[in-house]
């Protein structure tokens, strides 16, 4: 059962079209909601005239900030800074200033067009340089953060990590460069959607979230309701990738439902979804010192991460990713200085890898530069510096918990590192490391029914990663019953016990352990039951249950939990439960006439401890690799001078298709059963994209001799670099 590729739970419903995603839920008498937004990045709202819109047949309610409780409630996962609707100003392209609820979606759309907003376009902050300009407008009012000494600037947070003494560190070679990582968007194929309905003195919300319990908490606070009166139903998301981790318009639809006394549904367009979530862009300046043999002497990293208009969870992204900005290496002296900057752009949020792709782009490219300068092999320089198992590569914190060199050797072997290579081709290899969940709390209840089947209650969200399958495997293994007789129930705060969230590749470890413990609780009860009944040890579960429950029937209920507590004073609030380590190796061919990169072979190796379901791990890692090729080769959000996104939608913002696939692709794993999850597992599924960009860029450099430090590696950018080389 464990370590076998059980078919995806819910797979049949998905191939037959019967899987119910949120937009497929039709409530009787539901109102349709359409948002009103302005075609600019930053503006002062002078007046909103809803008279013409309210004349549209079928319009039931129009909300602007003036119609909301005052002061307008604000919310967010960390800072309560995002208003339910824009108050006074719009702070980013697409921020809604009004919401129309109508009997039909056509009426809602027509009325939204007729909401007349008088506004004054204002200068905005759209870049790192603009955010740091002392003359720049403040993105957030200082009153939102009254106790924050930085409140009169666009700096949300300054971070300083480090150890040793960088100033005193000696080096034979110092490599100094700047790297840029663009804004990219999640582009789950399912656009964001929200439904709410009044419910017995409270409210019920349907949202395809990774985080139903946080949504419940925030709605309860905004509406002044007890948790038990807020029910969040979270249908399996149609892709999430971090973009569906934190609330967006749930408070708005909840208010609309209570205001109108009717169910309301808000389905965002893909374009509106683009305007809601993105990865944090950044500029990283690094000085890295090396000894002549390639040993790293020091890292001196200064970076600026451009957040959006509201903090969402981006501050946490930056805090966690930069904690490991030196990568998985032994670095005697380190200084990491980071600024998190607010801007008049889409709020950046969690996105697969959680900041790691950005920091690895810099630390891995630095190692390649050093290898070239020192005449060293690019794999050897990594092996020389990688932390060894048990080594505290961040002094005082969770030590290296895997044989990371094994992953590197495996990837190098799969890409045939060191073998002769055709002209015009090149290979690259890069690694990355992500701190997994620090704090966490997952609870599970398992109900063993009298016929020997079981229902597993788990607050995890299955957004495609396959948690439903893996948790069923754990329960089947622990209870010794067939997987077909197990149903995993998720995504309903009124039905399943608390789970902190589905993020940070935590579910296999945290919820996996909670389910395993709940099953062991049942097994202990069964043993006691057998002893009480005087039954022999090898009696089957079903026989035992029949003997115990007779015709009255009943069930055995097991409870399990897995927690990682907050550690006061720790920069991350707690030590990482495990590290997600990943190695990517790529072979490319570059067409020097066009700048086009052809991926000949692409390999990922993930240290997963134990692959509970090898096919699911492979799907996740290959999928992550394809996603990584997106931000490496083609994806970037383009803003104009007034902060408008110029490439909204699938045609102008390209993501990889079947035709962008490498000719060959492999997703390999290292399994040493050294993780804290069930059976030695670690989290998986993010690693495949964490080192894509530096691996591919390194291969492009070997193929062409040009070094590119901005992403994506579009044909134009590669071609221009080649032209400069040939000058």
């Amino acid at each position: 059962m464990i370590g076998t590729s059980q078919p995806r739970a819910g797979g049949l419903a998905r191939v037959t079209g019967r899987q119910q995603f949120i937009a497929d839920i039709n409530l009787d008498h539901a109102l349709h909601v359409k948002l009103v937004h302005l075609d600019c990045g930053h503006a002062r709202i002078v007046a909103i005239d809803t008279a013409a819109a309210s004349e549209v047949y079928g319009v039931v309610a129009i909300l602007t900030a003036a119609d909301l409780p005052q002061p307008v409630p604000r919310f967010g996962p960390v800072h309560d800074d995002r208003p339910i609707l824009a108050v006074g100003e719009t702070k980013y392209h697409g921020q809604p200033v009004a919401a129309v609820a109508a009997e039909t979606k056509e009426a809602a759309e027509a009325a939204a067009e007729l909401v007349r907003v008088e506004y004054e376009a204002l200068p905005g902050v759209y870049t790192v340089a603009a955010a740091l300009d002392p003359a720049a407008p403040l993105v957030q009012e200082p009153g939102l953060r009254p106790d924050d000494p930085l409140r009169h600037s666009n700096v949300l947070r300054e971070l300083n990590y480090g150890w040793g003494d960088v100033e005193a560190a000696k080096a034979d070679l110092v490599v100094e460069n700047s790297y840029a990582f663009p804004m990219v968007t999640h582009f789950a194929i399912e656009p964001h959607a929200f439904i709410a309905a009044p419910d017995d003195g409270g409210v019920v919300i349907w949202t395809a979230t990774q985080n139903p319990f946080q949504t419940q908490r925030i709605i309860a606070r905004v509406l002044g309701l007890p948790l038990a009166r807020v029910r969040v139903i979270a249908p399996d998301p149609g892709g999430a990738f971090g973009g569906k981790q934190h609330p967006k318009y749930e408070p708005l639809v909840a208010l609309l439902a209570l205001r109108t006394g009717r169910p309301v549904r808000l389905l965002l367009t893909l374009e509106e979804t683009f305007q809601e979530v993105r990865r944090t862009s950044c500029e990283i300046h690094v000085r890295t010192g090396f000894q002549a043999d390639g040993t790293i002497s020091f890292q001196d990293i200064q970076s600026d991460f451009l957040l959006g208009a509201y903090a969402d969870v981006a501050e946490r992204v930056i805090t966690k990713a930069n904690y490991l900005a030196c990568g998985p290496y032994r670095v005697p002296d380190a200084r990491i200085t980071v600024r998190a900057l607010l801007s008049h752009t889409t709020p950046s949020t969690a996105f697969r890898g959680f900041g790691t792709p950005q920091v690895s782009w810099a630390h891995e490219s630095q190692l390649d530069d050093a290898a070239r300068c020192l005449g060293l092999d690019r794999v050897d320089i990594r092996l020389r510096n990688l932390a060894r198992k048990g080594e505290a590569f961040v002094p005082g914190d969770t030590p290296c918990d895997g044989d990371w060199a094994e992953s590197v050797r495996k990837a190098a072997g799969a890409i045939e590192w060191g073998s002769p290579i055709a002209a015009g081709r090149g290979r690259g290899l890069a690694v990355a490391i992500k701190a997994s969940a620090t704090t966490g709390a997952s609870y599970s209840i398992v109900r063993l029914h009298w016929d020997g089947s079981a229902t597993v209650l788990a607050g995890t969200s299955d957004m495609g990663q396959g948690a439903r399958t893996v948790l069923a495997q754990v329960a089947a293994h622990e209870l010794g019953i067939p997987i077909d007789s197990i149903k995993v129930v998720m995504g309903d705060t009124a039905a399943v016990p608390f789970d902190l969230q589905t993020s940070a590749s935590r579910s296999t470890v945290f919820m996996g352990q909670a389910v395993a413990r709940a099953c062991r609780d049942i097994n202990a009860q069964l043993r006691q039951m057998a002893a009480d009944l005087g039954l022999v040890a090898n009696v089957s579960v079903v026989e035992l249950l029949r003997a115990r429950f007779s015709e009255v029937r009943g069930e055995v209920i097991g409870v399990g939990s897995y927690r990682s507590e907050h550690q006061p004073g720790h920069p991350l609030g707690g030590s990482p439960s495990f590290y997600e380590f990943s190695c990517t190796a790529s072979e490319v061919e570059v067409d020097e006439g066009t700048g086009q990169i052809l991926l000949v072979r692409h390999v990922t190796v993930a240290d997963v401890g134990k692959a509970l379901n090898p096919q699911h791990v492979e799907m996740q890692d290959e999928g992550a690799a394809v996603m990584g090729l997106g931000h490496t080769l083609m994806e970037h959000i383009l803003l104009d001078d007034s902060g408008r996104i110029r490439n909204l939608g699938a045609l102008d913002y390209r993501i990889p298709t079947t035709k962008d696939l490498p000719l060959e692709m492999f997703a390999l794993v290292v399994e040493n059963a050294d993780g804290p999850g069930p059976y030695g597992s670690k989290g998986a599924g993010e690693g495949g994209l964490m080192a894509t960009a530096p691996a591919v860029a390194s291969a492009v450099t070997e193929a062409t001799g040009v070094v590119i430090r901005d992403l994506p590696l579009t044909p134009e950018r590669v071609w221009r670099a080649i032209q400069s080389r040939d000058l």
Partner: protein
Amino acid sequence: MSSTPIRVTVNGAEREVEVAPNTTLLDFLRDRLQLTGTKECCDLGECGACTVLLDGRAVNSCLMLAVEGDAREVTTIEGLSENGRPNALQDAFLAKGAVQCGFCIPGQVMAARYLLSRNPHPTLAEVREGLSGNLCRCGGYVQICEAVLAASEAGT
């Protein structure tokens, strides 16, 4: 807006209905017939999530009007399986691990169905070409292509 009567066959059943002339085939299928297996993503013909067969040809149902279905035959994902049992192509998607979140999968399956109807034994390159209009952000393309090739070998 006035309605137009049409006679359209959907998954083998002929229907006489009145539709507004500006109703897309996608909205007609999802909102009127509650055939929600066909998915809406970009609504501009860019992503392929809404792919259905119209007289056997794959189309983006968001780019068609319902009235264009008049006197024609529409097949949606619900029309491929009988009594909820998957056909061989759908089975291949499951067996090869091509399904992650699953939101794009109905469109992928319909595009693959059309590809195999034109070209029962495609090469990998032809499969990649044939499915290039169907986006999958979970990135399950390798397995999706393997599934189509496996279904082809099985003679679907």
